[in-house]
């Protein structure tokens, strides 16, 4: 009797352990959710042929040409990388707000803040500016903690979130050492503004029903309308290198709007790209390198 019970106990425990371990190992080893790869991801984009490449052209144009070149390859052969030259960053926050506008980020959601640090003492002072996009880590700690496979690293290196899968548990927020993920709590910039104003087109003032807030955003090439509590309300959100712009041959908005031209973007697998050049020629660093996350955003200090 005891022996039988012992065997049963053992069997149950063994099966439990085996199943659990199996499940964990399976998920550790299994590939990320299905991403389109191969020929179907090749994009023949207008590569500014009619704007002749010139010596001394704005680096934005050079990077845009390189972008088109990269998009002509299958996604798995691209390797998106960002280089931020903090010597050229003037701390203007244009990237931060450009990103808010491009991705229609609500209050409390930010993809790319610029950190300002005051160092030294009068009169030997210094201010350091460090833009902090998502690092698109090669070993992203945010991905493994997602309980529902709603976030993963794409073949081109971008860590994405599928808003329609994300359950909003915010585990990934805690896992990111860079604080690069924020949660969409469903706020609107215009809510509660001009309370009491008569509604409708006949009112003395415009009123809080401002049209830009209800326009859908284009993240991930889809349309997301947050009105009526639709996703991405409740989701985790993060920088995705403006994938929807890349698809159209446009650089991420933080790159194009950088007034100091401190942010560079491109395909690190292209030996002739500007980012490759910058990473090779400079003593680049990554943020919190000791965390072992292997960021794909590099800094020149």
């Amino acid at each position, binding site marked *: 009797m005891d022996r039988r019970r012992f065997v049963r*106990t053992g069997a149950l425990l063994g099966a*439990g352990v085996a199943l*659990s371990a199996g499940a*964990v190992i*399976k998920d*550790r080893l299994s590939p990320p959710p299905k991403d*389109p790869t191969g020929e179907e991801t090749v994009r023949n984009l*207008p590569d500014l042929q*009619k*704007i002749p490449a*010139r010596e001394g052209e704005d680096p934005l144009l050079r990077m845009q040409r390189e972008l088109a070149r990269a998009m002509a390859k299958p996604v798995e052969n691209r390797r998106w990388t960002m280089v931020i*030259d903090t010597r*050229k960053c*003037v*701390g*203007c*926050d*244009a990237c*931060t*707000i450009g990103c*808010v506008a*491009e991705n229609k980020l609500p209050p409390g959601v930010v993809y790319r803040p610029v*950190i300002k640090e005051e160092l030294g003492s*009068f009169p030997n002072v210094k201010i350091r500016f460090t833009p902090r996009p998502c690092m698109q880590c090669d070993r992203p700690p945010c991905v493994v*903690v*997602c*309980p529902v*496979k709603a976030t993963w690293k794409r073949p081109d290196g971008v860590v994405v979130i599928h808003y329609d899968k*994300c359950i*909003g548990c915010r*585990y990934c*927020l*805690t*896992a990111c050492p860079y604080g690069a993920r924020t*949660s*969409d709590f469903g706020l609107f910039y*215009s809510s509660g*503004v001009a309370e*009491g104003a008569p509604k409708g087109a006949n*009112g*003395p*003032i415009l009123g809080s029903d401002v049209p*830009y807030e209800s326009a*859908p955003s*284009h993240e*991930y*090439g*889809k349309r997301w309308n947050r009105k009526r509590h639709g996703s991405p309300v*409740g989701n985790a959100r993060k920088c995705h290198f403006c994938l929807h712009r890349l698809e159209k*041959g446009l650089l991420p*908005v933080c790159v*194009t*709007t950088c*007034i*100091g*031209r*401190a942010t560079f973007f491109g395909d690190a697998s292209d030996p002739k790209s500007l980012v490759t050049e910058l990473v090779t020629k400079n003593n680049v660093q990554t*943020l*919190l390198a000791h*965390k072992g996350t292997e960021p794909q955003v590099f800094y020149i200090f």
Partner: protein
Amino acid sequence: MRSGYQTRVGGNDPAASFLDDLVPFLPWRRLLWAVWVVAVLLGAVGLVERLHAGHLPAGYGSYVPWGLWVAFYFHGVGIAGGAFVLSVLGFLTGQSGFRSRESLRVAILLSFAAILPSFLGVWLDLGRMERAYRIFLSPSFTSMMAFNAWMYGIFIVVSGLGWLLSFRDRSEWLKPLLTLGVFFSILFPSQSGSFFGVVDAKTFWHSALLPMLFLASAVTAGGAALLVVRALVGRASDAGETDTALRKLRIVTLVAMIVYFIFEFAEFSIALWNPNSHSPAIRLILTGPYWWVFWIVHLGLGGAIPLLLFSTHSRTAWILAGFLTAVAFISARLNVLIPGQAVGEIQGLQEAFQHPRLTYIYHATWMEYFVGLLFLAFGMAVFFVGSRVNRILSVRWGGSPGEPEPAGGAGDMKSRRQVLAGGAFLGAAGIQALARPFGARADSGDPDSILIGGRPDGSYDLCDPDHILYSACLQCNTGCGIKCKLQEGVLTKIDGNPYNPWTLLPHLEYATHPDQAALVDGSICPKGHAGLQTAYDPYRLRKVLKRAGKRGENRWITIPFDQAIEEICEGGNLFRHVPGEENRRVEGLRSLRALVDPAVSKEMEGDVKAIWDEKDPDKKRARVEAFQSKHAGRLDCLIDPAHPDLGPKNNQIVVAWGRLKDGRGDLYKRFASALGTVNAHGHTTVCQGSLYFTCKAISEQYEGGKFTGGKKFYWQADTENSRFVLFAGANLFEANYGPPNRAVRLTENLASGRTRIAVADPRFSKLASKAWKWLPLKPGTDAALALGIMRWIFDHDGYDARFLSCANRAAARESGETCWTTATLLVEVKDGVPGKFVRAADHGLATPEERQTSEGKTYEEKFLTVMVDGRPTAVDPNDDERPVWGDLFVDGTLPDGTSVKSGLQILIEEARRHSVEEWAEIAGVDPDDVKAVSRELVSNGKAAAVDIHRGPAQHTNGFYNVLAWMTVNMLLGNFDHKGGMIKLTTWDHKGKGGLFNLEQHPGKTTAFGVSSIRHGVEYEKTTLFEGYPAKRNWYPLSSDIYEEIIPSIGDAYPYPVKALFFYMGAPTYALPAGHTNIQILQDTEKLPLFVASDIVIGPTSMYADYIFPDLSYLERWEFQGSHPSMPVKVQPVRQPVIAPIPESCTVFGKTVPICLEAMILAIAERLGLPGFGPEGFGPGMPLEHPDDYYLRALANLAFGEKPDGSQNVPDADEREREIFLRARSHLPESVFDPDRWRRIVGERMWPKVVYVLNRGGRFEDHAKAYKGNRVAHPYGALLCLYQEKTASTIHAGTGRRNRGHAAFLPVQDFHGREADDLRRGYDLHLITHRTISQTKSRTIANPWLTPLMPENGVLLHPEDASRLGLSSGQRVRVVSATNPKGEWPLGPGVSRPMESRVVLTQTVRPGVVSFALGFGQWATGASDFVVDGTPIKGEARRAAGIHANAAMWVDPALKNTCMVDPVGGSVSFYDSFVRLDPVES
């Protein structure tokens, strides 16, 4: 014994319990019910709030994403696991007190009662609750969360099965199952500690000890909870068994608790002894704002007190201890959860983008606590219902030990098992079925998708030329080119216009097709991005507002547009509805426009000029009398016949503006001109008047024997090519016409080392952060610093001698220059005071010549004089044939004995008043830095420059500060050179090329007389001259004296004003001591009629009688113009991008949106003003609609400046014209009517206008910016290093002659007194600065910008703070000698204190305090107001921070305005001293 409870079920005294015996006085059942009811009620409120408002009422955010509920969750699963494992281990090992199945079931029930609410808690915590099933359907077991959820899910199933099986005596699966339950509940998930332990990002969590801590706390809390529950459910009859259990649980709990504290100490000890470890979190736990959670709740209630209670022999004490422990151990979870999140790895993150959801501070909200109560109620309910079910099942199924298993039992069990199995199967199948559609759709995603999923792909319109309109920004006056992107007619994104040289370097060639340009975004600053929030501001006005209360009360009624126009034009008893104004008659424009005959006005103008030109006082009086008799019949047209030079009554209409750009500006000035008033005044002096007017003085040309024709403009460095720039008071990474266009021209050069910059500024700006040297000079000592540099340059022969010696145009050309200076011209010196230039003919050095001016007037040319090798030589500076190079340093006498000095001699003597060290001492900078900067300036050839902005200009000595800096540039000889000082060049739009002459104004009267701000004329010439000091200052050299517009009305000097129009201006906010303006505006006697044009109720328009809604910069036309640092010729066009927000009105029979133009046109229509209407520009050229002006101006721009049309832009091709129409399809006809537009410009120009509009203006290609080493559009004229004209003017406050050369002057009031009195008791020098996110009164409407700096604060050096006993973040009030209360008097009975927080920083010079402009708003949506009786709320966000302008000094002599620069006109922005008084809060 062990079945005692079972046998007694249904017995005589079911209510009798162990607890009743123990604590007979406590009605604990009723108490529990009461607790439950309260918990349910409050919990329901919380739940409704949670479901209704989502996560908004919760306190967690993105940096502390998990709060109270997650702590509850882990506490719940801890209790569940702990209670289960203890009880089951006791059961399995046959421990007394735990042997009975009933005790087992109690534990399982307790587990359920703990774990089910926990699940509810995390479910409510999810952002997307409806997708919780995904954890079970598509889990990723790499996630500890999924793993945990599954483990606890399995645990629930297993223990549930165990519970069912426990009713079956002989089940052989019970013990194995229970063992499995133990495993799942506590061992495998390590009681969830690893949930946190795996998070490497949180140092505090990332510890292997954490799972052990969780385990220990689970056993502690579980044991304690079990102890309480066992006591609670124990029967009196079973007291022995219960008591045994209690005794054992007491020991276990005690041991576990002690183990926990040992572990905890172990954990803390690492941090305590190695502060580099995760000590911030531990410091937070021990001494943070929630210190009491650790010390009182955790150690006290969860540790010390239970330990004490457990150490007694009282069962009651044990139960109390158990209760305390079970409750207080939530603190163990909280203390892991919250502090672990509250420490960020990235320093400065929460300051980078500020929002309540982006902080490391977490406070649970009432909603979270209420929902927490719901969990408690739910748990109690689970336990209660479970117990009832248990009792029923016990009766039904339960048997005695040893009894054979009832026959039906097995069957029952079997069926139960089948049911269970079936249920499980069905459940799984159901989930599968649910899941399939999602899965199926997942595979059928679009192959082009970025994400494969059920949601269809959406098109990205924003790079489609059909959705793009190019315009120009006006969030600040840099006016960058913008690319406006629309979604279904709604502007949702603004980027940089790549055709425009502000946003791309080099910008796209003008010929680039819009199809290509659509793909290229240029760079703009954050304000540019946020601009659409200015257009779509909820407070945007749609209707005309008329005042319904006292001025400033902010009570309004809406009135029809036409009624407003009628009232303004005709006047009358307009405000009889306002208490106190029942009988006030307002004079309308019709009667104010007294003089309407152009011939008469022309004649009067000439006669007034004659009065002014008469120097002899008696003859002057005679001329006045002559005037009076000549115009006797028309004297009633004059303001004051005794002073005909005050001009006609028309001058009592003042037309003023803040930000006014060309196009609109042309129309607004045309309006003033049609009204016949001289009073059309801008805002220049609040920005940097003395920069403009000093450069105007420098650019005066020798013409007709005198100096005239100076241009209101200035130079900046050619940023792109400079090798060295000293920026003084310029902060071009955040302001100063800089951010996008100048930053890009600097950063690469700085990073590559090609360029070096130094920054002279009392505050370490972002620009300074990239500088090689920072010279933190004392505010207002610019001239001293500049003279120090000049001294060094003179001492080291660092000046450009060849350039400076050029005395005329020919010499300049011969020397390879485009400009030349007055450096060598001889100045007559009387009593050591330099005066006018020597006229050669007056000293027998030349024969006078009869010449004609460019206007055809004949005059006698007497020539100026230079020394050439010691010989006095006559020179005409404009001579471009015979080069003359003069001697640089001349101090001597002419043959006739006149003592003379050269301009440069006067300058060197000024520079040599002090040594470099002494000058440095005055400026408060290190002399070595002065020398090093000087060396850089002279050793970079002509590619070095001093670039200044408003910093040096906005002082009472502003004119001379600017002159000193510009003189340094003259010494360097860098004007027009690549890398040197350059000026702007714009394409004309007014008809220079002869296409449409938009300057013709048929039938207008000539405006004449003294302006209300007394500019452009010398006090001494007028009939108002009464000696010195004058009542207020006179400004012969400057114009647009903003700080005089309203205060002069207050003093009725030179005359009372009857009507004031104000467009896009906020002098009350923008001016130093702007509060003085508020007091005047409120006085209806001093200002009977005040009409404002504004897009919202602004800080000045709120005092108006009427506010006409206006179009924002995204709905209107303008020509933005250029800035001095832009080498290429440009004309950016601002065009309507979105449909107008205001209502429409009808003017000249045409529909237009209500706006500035509509107001002008309607008044013109009603009054029949000349220059408007069907023949506004002459026959066949109407001006009845804004398009009549703007489209013609655009055609002019497209046509170019050559009458032969050779500068025409190309025609837009077919495709471009298509794009043009499609991109404007959302605009209403009142704004965009292609037929109307086409008709106005004509067929020939139409495709060219399209071409220009498709590119957002006209821009020369970058390649055309330079010719060799020089700019393609040079200044190319005389530079007045010494200024005869300036030197001949007199300061109206002191009667002293102004200096004509660079000099260092102290800060003085209007009467020339230094401000020592005002400084006494106030020792902090107040300055201001600009932050990139705000532009004075306008940008606060943009909520996107708020997170960058929600509140400004007062910057203070820590040294000053410790001297004054102030600490970081402390609230202070800014007070000064002229505003000792530190208040803004805003309106009747309303004032606002100037208070904010102290921000300690090393970036300000000690002794200096600064605040960023743009905050502390009281209008623009910041305050409540009433329209048509309906109160409308202001937005608190907009009122945040401080605007300390009211602390800036009121001039003690003028009394109703700030201190002024008497020469350049600038306001004194940076001269006041203040004190910071701590505020109790």
